[in-house]
């Protein structure tokens, strides 16, 4: 009979080994790209990696919360697009930066809130809800933008998301790290994180403990919307333009980062740290592919394959754990 291990130990054990593996993958990829394209090792290139993952990273943090509850938010990409378009449209017509920012953020929160209300108050599953709002946000963003592509944003604004601290560290990365620290804290040691994991495992048990699960769900989807808005601002600052095709690929990157990071799609188990590493991996891949002159489609292809493989591997591990458990009984 195997020695009984505490769940904390077992979880820590698994997390340590998994995250170590994930981290080694990250290191390996950096090394690989470096070998293929030595310029990859240049510090400003490496730091550029962190610059391009700001948007994905922020959204992935919120997505980790959502997937932990067993749900999903497919609308994040187009939510971001809508926020960006609103910003562009408001700024272009009013030249009031503050107003544009405020309305953009309000849009993100509102969209997230819409998701949250529907998911927590009606019995429509998160999948269907966000599938529908995904379409809705996309459509609205296209209606608002028409055929325009907004650009010409003030330098001050661009600096918010592109300035380099100490001339080296991109500020998006700082934003990401700060938010990561906050999310991680509340996820691993906070009441919110405990609630979310509980919802993912067994929402009824929480209801029978007097916890208001509806409020928690409403909160995380609204939070996701806020993150989309913030990500939009960073994205805009970086690319200096708002178009109606921004939203497409983001979903996949966000979900892949979270799943790769070890958060289970079935809910209950997850890791914000894992998501962090997952986001970095995606950043490295993207930068590496760009340097190797691979197109964005090849990148998406690789990401898609990685997601599928990760899902299959996790599912297979779950299966093995279950049959192993049965054998020892």
């Amino acid at each position: 009979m195997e020695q009984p291990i505490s769940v904390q130990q077992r979880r820590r054990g698994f997390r340590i080994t998994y995250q170590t593996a994930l981290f080694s993958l990250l290191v390996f990829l950096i090394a690989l790209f470096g070998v293929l394209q030595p310029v990859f090792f240049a510090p400003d290139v490496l730091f550029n990696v962190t610059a391009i993952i700001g948007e994905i990273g922020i959204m992935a943090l919120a997505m980790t919360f959502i997937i932990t509850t067993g749900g999903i938010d497919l609308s994040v990409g187009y939510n971001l697009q809508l926020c960006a378009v609103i910003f562009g449209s408001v700024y272009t017509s009013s030249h009031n930066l503050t107003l544009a920012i405020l309305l953009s953020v309000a849009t993100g929160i509102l969209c997230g809130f819409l998701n949250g209300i529907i998911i927590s108050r009606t019995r429509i599953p998160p999948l269907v809800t966000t599938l529908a709002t995904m379409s809705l946000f996309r459509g609205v963003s296209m209606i608002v933008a028409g055929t325009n592509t907004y650009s010409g944003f003030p330098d001050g604004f661009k600096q918010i998301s592109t300035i380099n601290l100490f001339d080296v560290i991109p500020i998006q990365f700082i934003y990401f790290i700060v938010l990561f620290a906050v999310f991680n804290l509340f996820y691993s040691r906070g009441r919110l994180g405990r609630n979310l994991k509980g919802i993912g495992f067994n929402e009824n048990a929480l209801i029978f403990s007097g916890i208001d699960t509806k409020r928690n769900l409403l909160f995380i989807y609204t939070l996701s919307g806020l993150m989309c808005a913030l990500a939009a601002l960073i994205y805009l600052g970086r690319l200096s333009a708002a178009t109606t095709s921004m939203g497409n690929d983001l979903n996949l990157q966000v979900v892949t980062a979270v799943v790769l990071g070890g958060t289970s799609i079935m809910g209950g188990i997850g890791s914000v740290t894992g998501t962090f590493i997952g986001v970095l991996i995606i950043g490295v891949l993207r930068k590496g592919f760009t340097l190797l002159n691979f197109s964005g489609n090849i990148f998406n292809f690789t990401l898609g394959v990685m997601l599928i493989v990760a899902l299959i591997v996790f599912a297979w591990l779950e299966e093995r754990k279950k049959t192993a458990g049965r054998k020892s009984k």
Partner: protein
Amino acid sequence: MDSGIASSGPEVVLHLEGITKSFPGVRALSGMTIDLRRAEVHAICGENGAGKSTLMKIITGIYKPDSGQMKLGGQPLDIKNPNEAYARGIAIIFQETSLFPDLTVLENLFMGHELKRPLFDSLRLFPILDYPAMRRKSAEIFGKLGMSVDLDAKVANLGVATKQMVEIAKALTFESSILILDEPTAALTNKEVDTLFETIRKLQAQGVSMLYISHRLDEIFQIADRVTVIRDGEHIHTEEVAKVTKDELVSWMVGRTLHNLYPKGEVEIGEVIFEARGISQSPLLKGIDLQLRRGEILGLSGLAGAGRTELSLALCGLSRPDSGQVFIDGKKLHFANYRQAMDHGMVYISEDRQKYGLIVPMSVSENITLPLLRSLSRKTGIIDSQSERRISGEYMERLAIKAPSGDFVVNNLSGGNQQKVSVAKALATAPRILILDEPTRGVDVGAKSEIHRIISNLAAEGKSIIMISSDLPEIISMSDRVIVMKNGLKMGELSRAELSQERILQLAL
């Protein structure tokens, strides 16, 4: 000796001999022997947990017996799955229907065994579903049952009684010669019960043999030819209904020795601290009144479906009653949700700990502190893990929860220890009023008495307890008073002096 068991004589269609079945921690059936004659209605009677449903699941192939023999019409019977049972002519009408709500009656009747005909008759090719034939057969079957049902109605739109008729008709599409009805009248009105009985008699006349599981003695006397009483997984007695009285049945159902139970301590019972008046909730609860005193253990007895759980949920904000009031310390209160009830010192421990009580993949500590998270993270939203550890350690010790540490996953604990975690979770909220729903279900004897000790201590500390239990000796030894429920009504109240298994059952049945 019984007059019932014989392999010869009036034709025996089904014979079970020495059937034994165990699950981890509990022996459900022990040497069960029973037989069913052609065209008879044979009632199976026993308390909750006596083994009735396990028996039925073995007969219909959902479970396999550990040992024993089954014979169908004299031939050995070895069923691997419910489908095979159907094919051999054995059908069961479940309590929870196994129908497809979005499909029509006709589709449900023949799902999985539809009638077919070839698309091109002469060529015998391309079998397609033969609706006319299925309609004809359905009409035939419903005709035999003396009913008419709209074959194209969606099952979801049918009433409970009609759904049951559809289930019965479904069984008959298999040309079943043996029909098992599991508590068929649980959700029926009196008029619907009459219709059901008419149907049963018609089926009998057509040669169908039926096993009728029920604890409703009045019905058994109405409809059954013979009755078998089982208790604790064992066959107790089989007798012709005409030759037996209700009291005899009750005494056979009862009769366990009151051993292995923690003796109840003497507790001073104080004033009324909790009162419920006129609690009603459709479809079950009808005007329940209840009083609870400080330090008192109030037993809530009755058979499954009597409404004890429903009442409990309605009392503590987990569901809303249609009418009635709740008072704590004389003050009228209204709970919009469970959290409000908890804030007033009430707590409910569910009977299904795996589904509603615990988060099984999480640790003991995490489970115990689940209702306390708010206060453990008061200022910052971050859980004070030191306090968490202290509290969970405290309760682990107090309730003697056997686990190496608070970080141990609940999944790996024994049933008894899991239940203790459930109790610890409730106690951690420092309640004054506890509602325990089957607190020792699925718990081994040793842990059972420990839990009884805990409950008695709680009462001694001045807490008030409502205890739902289907375990008669348990409720008799633990309770200061017992309220017996039946069909959502309060049938009676017994003081400790008046308590006896017979009296409780008389009220409950």
